[in-house]
């Protein structure tokens, strides 16, 4: 039996591990190698510069700027779609809603669109002269509005995050909806009998039951937000003047626009470590949760 298990483990794991090792782990290590060089990408010749790239990162204003933006991005890109998705799910869960399936599809629709398409749509929405947003504001306030949402350093990052949230909200909603179907009806009925109102029911009965769904939503949000490069690339490319740079964007610009592959790789290493820290933190929280739930 045990020998069999050993055989089957090896047989079943061989292919996934091989592919993962060769095409994910190895390139990761390979890229770290360049973080100790001054490679410019074009030139086959390069020098080893030790920790010079890392020393430079510490004093690089643009790096600090990108780090702050990354934190903002991660926090908001986690909160907005999650809370929005939860709200939508709770609204839709009232089983009496007519056409619930139509609504679900509408809210889910943006997920099916690519970053390329979503980015383009939102560029048109934020367009200062004839964009939908300013047109709407004008209609409401009656005053002409020409604020350039994507072109102002104080709003560019947040405007992209809103577009991102619009796209991601549907996914959170679906998962929360799925979680909601697992809430036993007799539980909410019991609460109702005991005199709980709608909010109390939601807060004390429904939300605690959504914990596992939340775990999935948070994981997906974090994954997607760390990868939230495409939409930034399409919408602002980190601009105007770096105000919406995230670490991934910053790394891309240093590597590919300034031709500093070595320095870009060093930024990758930092990004990697940051990601590791997040993963570590997340899994630890998960484990705690597991312990609570037995």
């Amino acid at each position, binding site marked *: 039996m045990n020998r069999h298990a050993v055989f089957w483990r090896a047989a079943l794991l061989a292919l996934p*591990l091989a592919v993962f090792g*060769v095409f994910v782990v190895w390139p990761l290590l390979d890229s770290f190698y360049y973080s100790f060089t001054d490679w410019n990408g074009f030139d086959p010749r390069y020098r080893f510069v030790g920790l010079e790239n890392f020393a430079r990162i510490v004093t690089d204003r643009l790096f600090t700027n990108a780090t702050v933006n990354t934190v903002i991005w991660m926090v908001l890109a986690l909160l907005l779609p999650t809370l929005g998705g939860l709200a939508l799910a709770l609204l839709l869960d009232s089983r009496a809603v007519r056409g619930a399936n139509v609504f679900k599809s509408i809210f889910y629709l943006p997920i099916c669109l690519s970053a390329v398409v979503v980015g383009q749509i939102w560029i048109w929405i934020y367009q200062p002269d004839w964009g939908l947003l300013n047109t709407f504001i004008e209609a409401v306030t009656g005053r002409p509005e020409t604020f*350039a949402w994507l072109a102002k350093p104080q709003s560019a990052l947040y405007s992209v995050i809103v577009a991102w949230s619009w796209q991601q909200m549907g996914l959170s909603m679906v998962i929360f909806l799925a979680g909601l179907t697992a809430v036993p009806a007799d539980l909410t009925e019991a609460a109702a009998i005991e005199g709980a109102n709608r909010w109390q029911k939601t807060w004390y009965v429904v939300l605690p039951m959504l914990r596992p769904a939340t775990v999935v939503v948070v994981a997906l949000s974090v994954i997607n937000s760390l990868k939230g490069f495409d939409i930034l690339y399409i919408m602002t490319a980190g601009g105007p003047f770096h105000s919406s740079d995230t670490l991934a964007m910053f790394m891309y610009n240093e590597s590919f626009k300034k031709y500093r592959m070595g320095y870009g790789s060093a930024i990758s290493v930092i990004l990697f470590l940051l990601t590791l820290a997040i993963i570590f933190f997340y899994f630890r929280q998960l484990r705690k949760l597991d312990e609570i739930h037995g």
Partner: protein
Amino acid sequence: MRRISPIKAAALAGALALTGGFGGGGSALAEGEVTISHYFSGELGRAGLEKIFAKFQETKGITVKDSPIGHEDFKAGILVRAAGGNLPDVFSYWAGARTQFVVDAGNLGAIDEMWAARGLDSVVAKSVADGATMYNGARYLVPFGYHYAGMFYNTKVMAEAGVTGFPTTWSGFMALCADLKAKGVAPIALGSKNRWPAQFWFDYLLLRTAGPDYRAKLMAGEAAYTDDEVKAAMALWKELVDAGYFTPNANADDWTDASDKVARGDAAMTLMGTWITGYWNGNGLMAGDDYDFFEFPAIADGVPNAVVGPVDGLLISANAPNRANAEELLAFLVSDEESQGTWAQAQGALSPNVGVDESIYTPVMKRALAAVGNADTFAFNYDLATTPPMAEHGLAMFARFMDDPSGYEGYLADTEDGAREVFGK
């Protein structure tokens, strides 16, 4: 870690076996092919090239495998290919500092022999050949088309505002702007979302005040962005912005948006390269009737008359598998007058080929050609004149300036910090 290593070894072996199984799908090329990668992905450029490549294929029997990709994506894409040691036979690139960078990295094959054998000296205009094709003493680049940046305006808007003559001096230009603004027309449109459209302002203001020699020094890192010369140019620019002569939200617009504003009559003029004529023609505007241009006015006395613009070049990579075919293609693209004409018309470009008959040009392009011919110097625009890392700093500065010009001295100081790092000053 040690416990994982046998798994990793197994993984490697497995993957090698896996990829081995795919063999044969490689990039071995059949004879009679040449691969080219370029950034002429726009509707008009693409259509023009298809026609040109078809003719090349017909006359030379060599198949062109091309892959157009948008401007910005091209920059990254070609770098990845260079880094991976897999450049196409031929790729388009901008003459100047960017090509220099690729030459320095040893990625290009020199074409002196081909140039001489095909007699390209008598084909390519000397003014273009001198500045754009030679790097480190060898010839690398074949010019495919070039552009001139001028002040393009909407003729109807100008006529309605009662403008009859166009300024040749700075005071005249300021008066024109004031006049237009007083009549309720926004004088200048600028779409600096992708930053580079703003550079023509910096280029011309600096060239017309401090002159081409000083600018060349600044581009090479031998002068400082905190010098009085640069500050003076920026101060002039600031005057224009402060007076409200630019349309608001320049950073929100693409150059095409700014062009649309002028075409619609929402603004009177825009400082842009001749490719704007290709764009406008494509949208049904008539050269001369709907739009025209005037040259950027003189500012300081005694400064040589420089014009600004980019040269689109074609390069052959150092290890091109189809080198002979690549040379054939380059020679054809610049020498075939019909193709050069097709291209000039599709892109709104000027042809570097001296044999191309002027009659192919619109009246506006004829004047652009004359403007280049009358100039003392042809200077590359900012992001082609200075090294790519430096250009990133400078372009960011322009965008920042257009957002809020009041802090320009501080921006210049930051830019100089960047320059010190880039040039190792």
